[in-house]
């Protein structure tokens, strides 16, 4: 008995020591490079043209320490738990809202920005960040449908409701994401993608369930690979993923249904951990330059919110309605709000239950 | 029938048969017979043209050094190995291709081969239960067998809880529980200490006589073979060197190998001048062997226990004591004769080192071995002049 008590005490002591160590480390600057002529940039993997980083260093003298994350939540956790000193990060829309609410972001001083006028007004002043107090848009995109013209006629798949067509039995790949999965039935039922009514959510789930016979698989990033390999004829995914898939298979096309869809943003923010504000502002201004934004957009293949940059893009890209849809379609797009913990879980549970529907 | 009574009965029969001068071979076919059996692994000839016959109810021993082929013969009988050529017969029927499990024999392995996942009871019950015996019969059988090996108190023990000697007994009981007609024993006592081994030798012999089944016992220990067996096969290099009763083998070794392997021997080169006269160490000696060519080169065997030390004037040879060691009931003495030959002598009295003494022996203790004489020729020769002697008497 005494032994058990001793070992439990030992464990508790170790846990306390670990907590203490973590606190101590958090209070320190952490592992990032912290000399003055540096910029700690926290971004998605492979989400900037490396040549631009070199150019930035050359022009400004700031060396860039580039660290990557693979999900908003991973980035959020790392910034929230501290121990880091990221000067800039690139979260998505709803996450910006959440981080803002939890006071994890520093406001951006517009007086120090030189390129804000280059941005398209349609992509500024979004609900998740009114007046762009905390963020500048980096890339934007949509949720839409990829189809393969070897198996599907373009006219058969123009709207979300077309997905329910019996001719697509067991042919659709759906992105494994609760918000996106439920956005589809919500839009077809003329509801907001941020709807917070239990009845509406239940109705959306019920409608999504009726899509199950047409669903071949619910997968994530692999959609682009599967579509490029002709594994399925239709997929619902993001424009960024679609761009890569289209590059690899000329039979693929991407459409954003005109009745509406999700509009997503990856914006640059300054986390409260920022230590090198001068460097951060230098980078914000650097990336806002039309030439640099255009180079980045060409390299990454996503749509840039910088309208002067768009003008610099080759005509084939600039006029591609798949990725730069017309104004009318854009006006119907909806941005995801952060739903808060309770509703985030309700959406996830609803989607989880849908996934477990017997096929 | 009670085991003890059965035993007495068998002994009576045995005596009866012996006193009447009957030969068992005359009244039954051999239980096991090898006809020109050979076994090779590629070019490696492990057994060469073996012929042998085993009679039911006897205790046989295959004796030889390791690699002599004795265990190979056992494995051929049990069916673990298959012959390269020749036939193996069981009660007159060829069984070359009968699988192990269908042969009416069981084996006691050197390392016992007990199933560690079973209790003593379950080990012994294994054979009967495979045969499909009823639970009740199995219990009776196992109890009987465990009583036979004096382990009836140990039925519920795990194998790991037993001593080496107890495991040995379980292995015997397990093999016997199948009512085999032949029990094969592969050096079963070699892992036991000296005292336990002696005890088990006695018990095995007793069990064999009580049950009256054939035992084929493999060993490299000549003492063990001499003590237990009705009949011994001495093996070397995949060939049966000699077979016979323990007394025959000991007293009349056929060749250098057998003489050397069985007991202690003084072996010398010599010449058989005529019948009953042999020449060695530069002198002629009377002896009791005959049937050889005049002046044939031979080997002479004299057992240490047949030699005596005596006063110089009474000695047939004169030797110098070189070494001696006390062995409890005798002194083992090494002595050198004038030709430089070394002699092993077992003497009852202590001697002095470097003392010159006489060495003496009786004519009938001189045993003559011819070079390369086959067993059949050897037997025939022995018979020819021993018959003569009997007639003379």
């Amino acid at each position, binding site marked *: 008995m005494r032994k058990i008590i001793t070992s439990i005490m030992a464990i508790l002591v170790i846990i306390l020591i670990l907590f203490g160590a973590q606190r101590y480390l958090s209070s320190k600057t952490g592992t990032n490079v912290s000399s003055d002529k540096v910029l700690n940039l926290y971004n998605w993997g492979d989400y900037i043209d490396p040549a631009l980083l070199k150019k930035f260093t050359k022009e400004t003298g700031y060396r860039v320490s580039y660290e990557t994350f693979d999900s908003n939540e991973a980035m959020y956790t790392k910034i929230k738990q501290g121990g880091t000193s990221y000067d800039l990060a690139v979260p998505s829309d709803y996450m910006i809202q959440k981080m803002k609410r939890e006071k994890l972001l520093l406001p951006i001083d517009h007086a120090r920005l030189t390129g804000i006028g280059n941005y398209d007004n349609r992509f500024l002043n979004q609900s998740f960040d009114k007046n762009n107090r905390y963020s500048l848009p980096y890339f934007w995109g949509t949720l839409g449908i990829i189809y393969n013209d070897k198996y599907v006629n373009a006219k058969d798949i123009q709207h979300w409701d077309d997905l329910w067509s019996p001719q697509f039995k067991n042919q659709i790949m759906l992105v494994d994401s609760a918000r996106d999965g439920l956005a589809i039935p919500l839009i077809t039922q003329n509801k907001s993608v941020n709807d917070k009514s239990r009845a509406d959510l239940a109705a959306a789930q019920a409608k999504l369930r009726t899509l199950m016979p047409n669903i071949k698989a*619910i997968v994530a990033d692999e959609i682009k690979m599967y579509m490029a390999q002709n594994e399925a004829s239709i997929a619902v995914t993001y424009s960024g993923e679609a761009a890569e898939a289209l590059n690899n298979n000329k039979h693929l096309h991407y459409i954003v249904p005109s009745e509406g869809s999700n509009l997503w943003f990856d914006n640059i923010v300054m986390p409260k951990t920022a230590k090198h504000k001068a460097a951060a502002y230098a980078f914000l201004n650097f990336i806002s330059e039309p030439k640099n934004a255009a180079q980045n957009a060409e390299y990454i293949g996503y749509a840039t919110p910088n309208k002067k940059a768009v003008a610099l893009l080759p005509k084939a890209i600039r006029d591609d309605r798949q990725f730069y849809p017309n104004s009318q379609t854009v006006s119907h797009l909806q941005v995801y709000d952060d739903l808060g913990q309770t509703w985030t879980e309700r959406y996830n549970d609803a989607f989880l239950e849908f996934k477990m529907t017997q096929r | 029938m009670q085991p003890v009574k059965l035993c007495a009965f068998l002994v009576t029969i045995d005596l009866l048969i012996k006193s009447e001068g009957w030969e068992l071979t005359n009244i039954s076919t051999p239980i096991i017979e090898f006809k020109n059996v050979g076994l090779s692994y590629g070019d490696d000839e492990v057994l060469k043209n073996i012929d042998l016959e085993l009679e039911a109810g006897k205790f046989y021993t295959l004796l030889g050094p390791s690699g002599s082929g004795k265990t190979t013969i056992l494995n051929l009988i049990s069916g673990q190995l298959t012959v390269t050529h020749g036939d193996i017969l069981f009660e007159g029927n060829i069984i070359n291709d009968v699988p192990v499990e269908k042969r009416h024999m069981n084996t006691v392995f050197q390392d016992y081969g007990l199933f560690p996942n079973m209790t003593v009871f379950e080990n012994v019950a294994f*054979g009967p239960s495979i045969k499909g015996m009823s639970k009740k019969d199995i219990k009776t059988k196992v109890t009987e067998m465990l009583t036979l090996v004096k382990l009836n108190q140990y039925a519920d023990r795990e194998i790991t809880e037993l001593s080496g000697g107890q495991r040995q007994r379980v292995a015997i009981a397990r093999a016997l529980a199948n009512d085999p007609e032949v029990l094969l024993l592969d050096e079963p006592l070699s892992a036991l200490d000296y005292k336990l081994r002696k005890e088990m030798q006695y018990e095995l012999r007793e069990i064999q006589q009580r049950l009256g089944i054939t035992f084929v016992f493999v060993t490299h220990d000549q003492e063990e073979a001499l003590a237990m067996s009705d009949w011994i096969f001495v093996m070397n290099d995949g060939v049966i060197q000699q077979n016979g009763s323990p007394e025959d083998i000991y007293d009349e070794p056929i060749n250098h190998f057998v003489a050397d392997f069985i007991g202690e021997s003084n072996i010398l080169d010599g010449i058989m001048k005529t019948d009953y006269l042999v020449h060695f160490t530069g002198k002629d000696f009377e002896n009791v062997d005959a049937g050889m060519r005049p002046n044939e080169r031979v080997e002479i065997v004299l057992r240490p226990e047949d030699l005596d030390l005596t006063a110089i004037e009474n000695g047939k040879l004169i030797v110098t004591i070189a070494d001696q060691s006390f062995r409890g009931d005798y002194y083992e003495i090494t002595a050198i004769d004038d030709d430089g030959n070394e002699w092993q002598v077992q003497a009852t009295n202590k001697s002095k080192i470097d003392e010159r003494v006489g060495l003496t022996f009786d004519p009938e203790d001189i045993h003559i071995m011819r070079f390369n004489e086959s067993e059949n020729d050897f037997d025939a020769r022995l018979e020819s002049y021993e018959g003569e002697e009997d007639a003379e008497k």
Partner: protein
Amino acid sequence: MPKSKKQRQLFYLMPYGLWLLLFVIAPLILLLFQSLTTQNGQFTLHNYALYFSSGTYLLMTFNSVWYALLITIITLVISYPTAYLLNQLKQKQFWLLLVILPTWINLLLKTYAFIGLLSKTGTVNNFMSLFGIVPQQLLFSNWSFLLVAAYIEIPFMILPIFNSLAEINPRLEQASRDLGANRWQTLRRVIMPLSMPGIKAGIQAVFIPSLSLFMITRLIGGNRVITLGTAIEEHFLVTQNWQLGSTIGIILIVAMVITMIFTRDRKHSRKRG
């Protein structure tokens, strides 16, 4: 250097003990602690109540156990004869190496290799088309999921069984045959019981990880198979409800402990009455 034997033993156990404490016991306690708190850090049993009152989670639990069971049975049925035959081979260490080789390859790589094999334009369908068979949908089915999961787990089943078979004294097989048992009876009554520790170890090595498989459920199964692993992943990565994620984690650990108890090696289990 410590003096007494006991002290010395303790000294040698220190590194492992520390490791255990830091990376096994402490995280477990944190997990348990987290599962018993609300997001504001107050004590609650709410997470467990939620779990056990939710049809979705219970169904998912059932799915996890059911598929883990199927995977275990499939691997066992394939692995036992394989391990048995491997043991009879002359170059058994070499063949065993071939069996183990796939475990050196990253799990994700193997999974992608299977996508290459099973996809509509994959190797299997290409091969079948040689015989005029039209491309079949092989991916995204329960069968493809079971196939890939079993493939990945098989080495972990074969290895302990192989080792336990290799440890069996060949004499016992001889003895069994000698006592009248044929090959099948020998296998049934001697070899199988003696290799039971290996079978149990294999079941542990396969069943326990199979309970919480999640990646191949999506990649190969197309989320047709939803297990608790998927739910844990979601709660830690998407909804960020670590408390509920921890609760499911604790429940999985309990399931694993139960498996261990059922398959532990009982040395002296039976005594004749």
